[in-house]
């Protein structure tokens, strides 16, 4: 069987959970027909999970398992690794699938290390079904895609890249049984003591509302050159944004960062200026309607998601674009 571990915060499911279920259905061989593949169980964990079990039961899966334990709130890697390892002990799955979120990245390696089983992270594709499956994952900053076969017994733990599988592709089957499961967690074995999550500063700019965005990456080279990108943004009627390294350097404020640690946007037009397209950036913008990539490196992964691409020197192309846009 395949175990999918759902992610929830304060009683709300992370949407990426559905993407992990879609991946599990493909892996099980049930994506095309409802019967005949490996059975799928979805586990949801928390202090109190409310109606989440019922919500998940709409998927075409064999069962939904609900584990409630006060030690699971707030999230800690120690408690989650203990709980999921208990699930694995009793259910003996062939695969465990999780969405590749920051939370998963925090506890999945601990789980894998503890039970000494393989962990394949950031999976973007599944080839074949069941025990023969291989998994596609990016390597070398997305410049290459690797086909990977887990080694070392079951379960193989697989984390699924955000956006790689479609939440709306999940087969709904109606009414999987929802079962309560007891998990024992020793509270004294939880070493991390988390405080409440917070936001650094009020988000003054909501880039999610912008119709057009001009976004700059390492290719802009220096802080002085940001002005060129800003000028292009003005000419396009766009907001200015950036990839992480630009904000790390303080060249633009953190609140203008696009990507997994910043904002997720889907504007009408997204112009990536000198952005190579690391996956952490792509997850934040690949839903944009039209994507333009301008980069000197023809092999840059950003071109994989672009509708229009120009390979060349942004210091020549951006001024030419401004001239063109300002023509009456």
């Amino acid at each position, binding site marked *: 069987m395949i175990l999918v571990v759902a992610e929830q915060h304060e009683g709300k499911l992370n949407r990426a959970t559905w993407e992990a279920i879609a991946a599990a259905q493909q892996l099980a061989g049930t994506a095309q027909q409802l019967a005949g593949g490996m059975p799928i169980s979805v586990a949801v964990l928390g202090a109190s999970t409310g109606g989440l079990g019922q919500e998940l039961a709409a998927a075409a899966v064999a069962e939904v398992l609900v584990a409630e334990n006060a030690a699971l709130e707030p999230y800690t890697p120690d408690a989650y690794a203990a709980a999921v390892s208990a699930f694995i002990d009793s259910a003996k799955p062939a695969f465990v699938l999780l969405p590749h979120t920051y939370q998963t990245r925090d506890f999945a390696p601990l789980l894998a290390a503890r039970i000494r089983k393989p962990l394949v992270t950031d999976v973007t594709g599944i080839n074949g079904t069941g025990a023969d499956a291989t998994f596609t994952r990016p390597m070398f900053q997305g410049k290459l895609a690797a086909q990977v076969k887990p080694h070392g017994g079951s379960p193989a733990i697989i984390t699924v890249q955000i956006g790689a599988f479609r939440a709306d592709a999940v087969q709904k089957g109606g009414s999987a049984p929802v079962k309560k499961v007891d998990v024992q967690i020793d509270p004294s074995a939880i070493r991390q003591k988390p405080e409440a999550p917070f936001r650094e500063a009020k988000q003054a700019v909501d880039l999610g509302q912008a119709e057009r965005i001009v976004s700059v990456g390492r290719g802009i080279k220096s802080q002085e050159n940001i002005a060129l990108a800003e000028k292009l943004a003005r000419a396009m009627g766009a907001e200015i944004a950036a990839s992480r390294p630009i904000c790390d350097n303080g060249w633009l404020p953190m609140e203008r960062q696009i990507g997994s*640690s910043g904002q997720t946007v889907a504007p009408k037009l997204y112009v990536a200026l000198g952005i190579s397209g690391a996956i952490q950036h792509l997850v934040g913008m690949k839903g944009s309607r039209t994507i333009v990539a301008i980069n000197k490196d023809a092999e840059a992964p950003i071109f*994989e998601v672009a509708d229009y691409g120009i390979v060349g020197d942004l210091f020549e192309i951006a001024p030419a674009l401004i001239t063109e846009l300002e023509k009456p």
Partner: protein
Amino acid sequence: MKIAVCIKQVPTREWQPRLNDQKTWIREADVSYEMNEPDAYALEESLRLREKHGGEVVVCSAGPARVQTVIREALARGADRAIHVEHDSLGAADAFVIAEALAAAMRDEKFDLVLTGLQSDDQGHGQTGVILAERLGMPSSTIIMEVQIEGSSLRVKRELEGGWFQWIAMPLPALLTIQSGINQLRYATLKGIMAAKKKEMKKAALPDGLQPSQQVVGLAVPTRSKQTQMITGSAADAARELVRRLRDEARAL
């Protein structure tokens, strides 16, 4: 305070991938290497913590002989000494093997704090640090943006998604995986480079019998999910054509 910082040597950002004949790995002969960027931030953080709390910083790296270049660079930036688990097979090893190799070499040192980058820019498993913590019997926390130490307790700022953060307290010894951008990097001075030559670099052997947790059966340039229309010509021509298509085809302007 005895701090370890684990660093990896990875291909440079400018490197254009070339595959071996079996298309299962890269052609290592063509590669130019540098220090993994998140590890450089972890190194900087360890140096800042030593400046504040005293003690020593020990650079730990598992890899072929070539990784001594980045070990020397870390020593030149200010680390005190180094441990190198050296074996040719470690260049392409997965996170489990690297973590086990490092754990065996680091266990007896009884470090108070271990820092790593949050993931490597080559294989990018994002696992080595956390597995190493488990093998060393330490608690871990990942994607850290600030480190505070008071006596034997540790308080760290963990990055969450979408601009959120969270403070987490835990006892020492502990392992943290460091996010890029936590600090401003320093570069080696000439004095540092000279001093690095005299610093201790201890070799450690790779433990026998480590099994990989996964095998790369194929490696390829990713297939495009979209049909990208490439626009060529001089900068002026390309700009004119792009603006025309954005206006007429995409209706995005």
